[in-house]
């Protein structure tokens, strides 16, 4: 058993899953926004990074890690809600290129602003759990308390989101508003409020992903979510942008693919893994692997 755990195969699977859950969370957050407002939020990663900076600099004031996580998520949600109200709301009904361009601009502003406030050098965050790998019979297992924590936290968040959408009044209203906004309004549901809540939820999930990413060995810097966003987008797109389950599965798949390319070829080429998966997936099913219905929205 321990020989199996320390094998290079398991090493890569653990490493891939650890990165994959972060991708899954970003992908999930993109799907939530896409479902509610049909906007692909290119600033998702940057918004999460910004929120993490605000929350995590509180550590300097002697506030505990967990409180900082909560602050990050809260700030993320506020930024998400404001973004929908101020930047996205005026663009409903405009060509789909307009919100894309605006969010790309917002991405630029957030990254430049963060570099201006906190400098562009990497900031290491005192992680709540040890990053030292376990050993089995003197051999390294690619698992640390932190990696276990990040996988469990991500799974908890995914289950929470699923439960919220599936079993709560709010979740039902969110789903109805996304599926049929006009009918929902006719039933008295405050759809515009639901859209804002959708953005807040999404940004909250994104902030969790950024917190995990920043607490890990890569640390926090203004562009630290760029690559994560790209991988998260690919994960969401592989699933068809509509499917939360597809997004999560896509994230894990890309995490694993990158880890294997990284291990057997070169770390620089790892981003290629996601692109190849996306291209193959889209060639097979242009509407995404996990969407039931074809057809497009005009």
């Amino acid at each position: 058993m321990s020989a199996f755990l320390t094998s290079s195969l398991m090493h890569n699977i653990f490493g891939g899953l650890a990165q994959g859950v972060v991708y899954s969370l970003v992908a999930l957050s993109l799907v939530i926004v896409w479902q509610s407002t049909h906007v692909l939020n290119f600033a998702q990663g940057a918004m999460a990074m910004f929120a993490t900076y605000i929350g995590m600099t509180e550590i300097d004031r002697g506030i505990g890690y967990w409180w900082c996580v909560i602050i990050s998520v809260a700030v993320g949600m506020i930024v998400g809600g404001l973004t929908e109200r101020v930047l996205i709301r005026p663009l409903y009904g405009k060509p789909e290129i307009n919100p894309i361009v605006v969010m790309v601009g917002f991405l630029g502003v957030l990254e430049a602003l963060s570099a201006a406030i906190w400098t562009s050098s990497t900031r290491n965050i005192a992680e709540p759990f040890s990053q030292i790998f376990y050993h089995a019979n003197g051999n390294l297992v690619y698992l640390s308390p932190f990696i276990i924590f990040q996988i469990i936290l991500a799974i908890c968040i995914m289950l929470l989101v699923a439960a919220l959408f599936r079993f709560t009044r709010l979740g039902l209203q969110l789903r109805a508003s996304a599926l049929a906004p006009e009918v929902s309004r006719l039933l008295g549901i405050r759809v515009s409020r639901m859209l804002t809540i959708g953005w807040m939820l999404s940004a909250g999930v994104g902030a969790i992903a950024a917190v995990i990413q920043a607490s890990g060995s890569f640390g926090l810097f203004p562009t630290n979510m760029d690559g994560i966003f790209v991988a998260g987008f690919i994960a969401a797109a592989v699933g068809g942008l509509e499917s939360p389950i597809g997004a999560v599965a896509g994230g894990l798949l890309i995490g694993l693919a990158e880890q294997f390319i990284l291990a057997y070829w070169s770390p620089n080429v790892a981003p290629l893994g996601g692109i190849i998966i996306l291209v193959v997936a889209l060639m097979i099913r242009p509407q995404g692997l996990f969407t039931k219905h074809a057809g497009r929205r005009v």
Partner: protein
Amino acid sequence: MDWWRSFFRQESTHSRLIGVTALAALTLAITFVLPPVANSELAGGAAIAIVILGLSWLIGWSGQISLGNSGFMAVGAYAAGIWAHHHNTTPLVFTLALAIVAGGLSGLIIAIPSTRLRGPYLAGLTLAFAAAVTPIAQNFTSVTGGEGGIFLNSLVTPSWFGHLFSGANAVINANAQWTADLAVVVAAVSFFFMANLFHSRTGRAMRLVRDNDVAAELMGVDLLRTRSSAFMIAAAYAGLGGALYSLLEASVRPETFPLTLSITLLTLMVLGGIGTLSGAVIGGIIYSFSADLVAHVNSLTGVNPTSNLGANMQGIIFGVLLILTMMFAPRGLVSLRTPIQKLFRILRPRRQTPDLGELH
């Protein structure tokens, strides 16, 4: 007044040739009076204008969005750079042609899966491509020079041009102006081709595909071919611009093509006006003098340019400008002059010129 109007509408190849030549000649004349620093900036702006023009064509005319043009630039730059590094005496035209082909090919490769995609998928895939290009280039250190890049010295000022200059800084002045003039000429040729493309059968088919792909298909337009050719052309322009830019910089380095460059390109294109030649010119001019503009903003607001804020001022300004323009003047800064135009129209009514920059 008819010749005047037809000239500005650029309805015939002749008028387009005259228009582009006149603009280029004017710019070349200006380079004689500009200080060397400004000439270097102008050269960079001309290279960037070529890239913007390709992007403008892609977004404004074919309705496809790309966030990966910094990646296509890198492909062109590396192709030209690697070749020029080993064959230093190759004529510039050939090196640039190589960049065009390399850029176009990379565009085609991206286009094959992309043209079946719409809006956000396309934007995301091209972004992923741009994010992957430079790490991959760094991976092949023996060819691409890795992190440090490749050193280039193919832009040599010819001696006849150098003889035009005298005085203390003759060499510096001559070099700066030579690069500026060269970039302007390359840009003028690219602009002339694009102007003709706008008015060609392909251009019209492209707009039809953008506005109503179902109708276009019914009329016998091959959607996949039209869309992927639009991508290929945009990528070829990016490749050419990227190569020219790197030749001017005298090096090809990964850090020249960060993801933020794609944002900058998009901003400049949107500021100038989507889908127009003038938009690309304006975008290029803004790029040329963006460093000065930012320095100006810093001094106006009293921000220390070496502080964190000062160093990131450009990113903040560009991002804010991109958001504001898209929200309040989606047809570019040019559209802001409409109140003045309206006044003129009241004073002297005449037929309205067709809009090319309108997004659908």
